[in-house]
């Protein structure tokens, strides 16, 4: 297991950020999802050793998160969410500096800095002062410093924030390239669900400091529920009320399309039977491919 934590608890004063999190992350790219305040950043900070959990234990790459933080940090790359730079430097010096701090010899760090800067697309501007970088360039720079020492595990906190669509696409391609072919495990924390869907094979969903769901994305999409799109003619309230009574979660989109999340044990024909019962006409009835967004909404109860 790459990351393994059990009964992790952490509070900021009286506010509980993590409440008994127990999870195991297998190899591959894992997405860390959750609404604001779910505890994603706190979990990352604990895994990196920035914060000490008040209860619970855990291991990252086999090292204890309480006792072996320096070893964890030697083999982990971290791309923080905030803009980070050291004024007065260029990208090569900046990236090599952090490579050296990770334990690389100076000359090796310098050579590697050039390589990773070309890799992330900053090759041409690697000697420019960092203060003159655009938001997107700073984002790439953060990725470069995170991979300069060739980590075994990469923590990416909102890696596509501040990027234009093209930049976002390119950074996601880089992450996919790193995670899918190169034996580096990646943990991506993001609020952009489509990013997680396009990069990660596994997902961990946190909600209010608790583990809401965890598993392979493909399995989670289909395991516990099915999603049907229904369009009706007639009185909708009675229909949705009946479906909810049967255990379905029903959402109505702006164009009056009903999204019906059905429990696994319920047959699709029951939707039609309910429609007949409340005398509404079904005009459209399609089983939808569930996206991560649907699953996320279902799991954390976000409309």
């Amino acid at each position: 297991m790459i990351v393994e934590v059990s009964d992790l608890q952490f509070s900021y004063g009286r506010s509980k950020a993590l409440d008994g999190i127990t999870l195991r992350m297998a190899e591959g790219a894992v997405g860390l999802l959750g609404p604001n305040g779910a505890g994603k950043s706190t979990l990352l900070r604990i895994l990196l050793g920035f914060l000490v959990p008040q209860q619970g234990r855990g291991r990252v790459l086999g090292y204890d998160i309480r006792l072996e933080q320096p070893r964890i940090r030697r083999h982990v790359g971290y791309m923080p969410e905030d803009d980070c730079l050291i004024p007065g430097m260029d990208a090569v010096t900046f990236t090599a500096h952090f490579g050296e701090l990770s334990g690389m010899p100076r000359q090796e760090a310098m050579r590697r800095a050039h390589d990773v800067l070309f890799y992330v697309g900053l090759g041409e501007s690697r000697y420019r002062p960092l203060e003159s970088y655009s938001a997107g360039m700073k984002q790439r720079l953060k990725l470069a410093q995170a991979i300069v020492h060739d980590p075994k595990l990469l923590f990416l906190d909102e890696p596509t924030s501040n990027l234009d669509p093209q930049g976002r696409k390119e950074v996601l391609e880089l992450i996919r390239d790193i995670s899918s072919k190169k034996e580096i495990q990646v943990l991506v924390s993001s609020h952009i669900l489509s990013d997680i869907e396009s990069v990660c094979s596994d997902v961990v969903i946190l909600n209010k400091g608790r583990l809401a769901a965890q598993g392979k994305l493909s399995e989670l999409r289909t395991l516990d529920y099915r999603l049907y799109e229904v369009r009706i003619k007639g009185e909708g309230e009675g229909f949705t009320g009946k479906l909810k009574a049967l255990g379905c979660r029903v959402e109505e989109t702006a164009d009056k399309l009903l999204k019906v999340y059905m429990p696994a044990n319920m047959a699709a024909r029951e939707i039609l039977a309910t429609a007949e019962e409340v005398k509404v006409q079904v005009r459209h009835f399609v089983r939808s491919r569930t996206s991560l967004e649907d699953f996320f909404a279902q799991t954390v109860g976000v409309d």
Partner: protein
Amino acid sequence: MTIREKGYMHWDGELKEKRFPWWPITWLGIRLAFKRKYFKFILFSALGLAFVFLVGIYVSERIEDFRYMIKGESAVLEVNPAFFKAYLSWNGMLFMMVMILLVGGAGLIADDLKHNSLQLYFARPLKKSDYLLGKANVIVFFLLLITLVPGLIFILFKLLFAGNFHFLTTYPWLPLSVIGYSLFVTGFFCSYTLLLSSLSKNRRYVSILIVAIYFFSEILFKFFFENLKKNPAYALLSLRANLQQVAAWFFKLKPEFAVPWYWSFLILLAVGVAAAVVLNRKVRGVEVA
């Protein structure tokens, strides 16, 4: 084929635990200080002062040759512990030190706070002490360069110009005094600068604080001393006076003010303790409200 087309490449080296993990931070800090406007001018001005004192040592050994220039003020050029104390703790030298801190030290932590780089440092196998040592050593390097190095060179050149070891046999403890006081004043200014640098995200505010506190303490002392009974205990209010009181003890001289030197020592030590407490709270990978 470019590296982008080839895709991500592994590094085939091995990450090693370094003996001095703080060294890259210090080295970077020194290089960045030299890039700052006016820094070289200030540093070389301070070294220029050292050169003037060195010339003084030469003149003192050839006093008869220069008698026509000195006109009865030869006592000023007598090379003894007071001469070393004068170099290491006179107002001009302390002012140059403050200027070096202002330009080269103010942003050491403040810049990292402003640009969120602390989390990058602490995502590396660095302890808080490594980070602080790395930053402190930037100041240590520059201050020892203008205190300890010239101090020891003065002794060496005094012996060379004199052509005998008489000076050293008269004051055998002097090298230790030079080393001890240089380390003390450097240690104090390190704590002082890092403490102030950790209090703000803006290096300009920190620069202002470094100068303002130093001179305000002097103004406060002068104000009370001149207007209220001329009590020498008011010297304890001034950072400059405290440093000079401690310097007098290091060089076995009578302090300028009739206040026990150890009171000054304790006051300066208190700044160091305050710095340790504040730095321990402020320097961390993430800000916790």
